């Protein structure tokens, strides 16, 4: 079994998702079955194969390097759950 209680807690922490005990149990089961299933990729010989990260066959054009001033802080803050004097507001970080 690849995923145990410790591992799921670690991944959940890295993902910043709080899990309760019941959820942890369920995800341990799900993740293990998915990881067992993807294991079949080990049958494939990938020696000297370049990993493919961009599938586009077109040559991606560069854009001109010009700066643009789009003073849009109000727009950016419009959907913020909490804001204060032109900033996003979050719970106190430093005591």
């Amino acid at each position, binding site marked *: 079994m690849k995923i145990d209680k410790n591992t799921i807690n670690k991944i959940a922490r890295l993902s910043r998702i709080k899990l309760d005990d019941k*959820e942890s149990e369920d995800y341990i089961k799900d993740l293990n079955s*998915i990881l067992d299933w993807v294991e079949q990729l080990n049958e494939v010989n990938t020696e000297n194969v370049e990993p493919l990260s961009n599938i586009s066959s077109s040559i991606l054009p560069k854009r001109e390097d010009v700066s643009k001033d789009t003073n849009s802080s109000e727009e950016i803050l419009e959907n913020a759950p909490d804001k204060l004097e032109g900033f996003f507001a979050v719970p106190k970080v430093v005591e």
Partner: protein
Amino acid sequence: MPKSSLKQTLQDLESKKISIRELNQDYLKRIKEKENLNVFIHFNEENVLKQIDNLEKDNSTKKLKGIPIAIKDLFCTKSMPTTAASKILENFNPTYESFVTQKLLDEGSIFVGKTNLDEFAMGSATNTSFFGNTINPLSKENEPLAPGGSSGGSAAAVAADLCLGATGTDTGGSIRQPASFCGVVGIKPTYGLCSRWGIAAFASSLDQAGVFSHNVEDASILLESIAGFDQRDSTSAKVDIPNYFENLDDDLNGKTVGIPKEYSIDGTPMEISQIWEDAIKVLEKKGVKIKNISLPHTKYALPTYYIIAPAEASSNLARYDGVKYGFRSDEINSLDEMYENTRAQGFGREVKRRILIGTYVLSAGYYDAYYLKAQKVRKLIADDFNKAFKECDFIVTPTAPSAAFPLNEKQNDPIKMYLNDVFTVPASLAGLPGISIPFGKDKNNLPLGIQILGKHFDEQQVFNAAVSLERSYE
């Protein structure tokens, strides 16, 4: 009233047989009658009427002037909220317009509403939405069927004739599979043809916008309208967009179709193998050469996809942290607690599952074994297609391994659910254009779909083969 096509409607508007107002009021009426299907996350009649008012004052000629279009609720729209079917974006009102929807607005189309989808496009049945299931319009009473997913709302909107076209996005089959389930046409173009700007990101190396319509001609008109280069999407392709509709040619004489043997999968229902054979026979009669081809890494496409897509999703969805937009939990005694509770309460089960899987395969010590390995297999899958396309002009396969299944049937077993995408995922990994068209029925009289795949940026060939098959089927 029989369903009118987009092309016919444009002619009727042009000849003043019908006005923009009459046309759209007809659609509004049907949308209200079909509320029980839960097709729309956002529908506001006033908003539609306002668009009609504005267009009536507008004297310019526009290609889609007055045409009612439904928008998958993954595209940011200024005039309507955008939720991605997630609680975490429940009250999100974009301050900008996606590239694709802007193009449609520029052409004068009318947005009738935002359609339901699987949360963040993760699913194959439109049953992971925070806003409830969409019901397939082809369902019999008391036997609700899934519309497919993730773009199930858009496919259902076209099938129920609530619009003349709809936008979708396809990451592993999210346009083609619901098109097949709902008996409509759905095309996912080549990766890079339509800008991803303003589409809530799921897996950026796979996500691609496309359209649903009643028929192939309409799809060719709509796709041309939403395609094009955009410098705000770094993978947007600078290619010429042909006039797909004008160039439609159903004469396939002398072309070669590839039939991949690996798509004959054990356990595929007889009816699906049958429509596949039927389609091949039709093509043969039209003078198309039949070429048996091999795509040897096909069986590894799904596991490859279910490493790459969650990995990219875990990274893309990190932005939903309760700070910049969207939902924030009330239990926030510290910054970390705010993140963890916001994401725990804001995301649904399938989305969390994929974030966790993605985080795991990208985490220290596992990156090479999973993510890098999957990217290498992805290369082999893409190479398979490149080789095959040296011998054929297009490829024909079934779209999905089943017809529409009962709502919620496959919810408990993630891998069983993932198998829905077995025929659509390989082309997604290779970035190829693919269309699904209705072709035949199963024993319960539910539609089945045939998928046509083409070379990169050869949407024209895909449309030509599709229109040819469609015309011989009708």
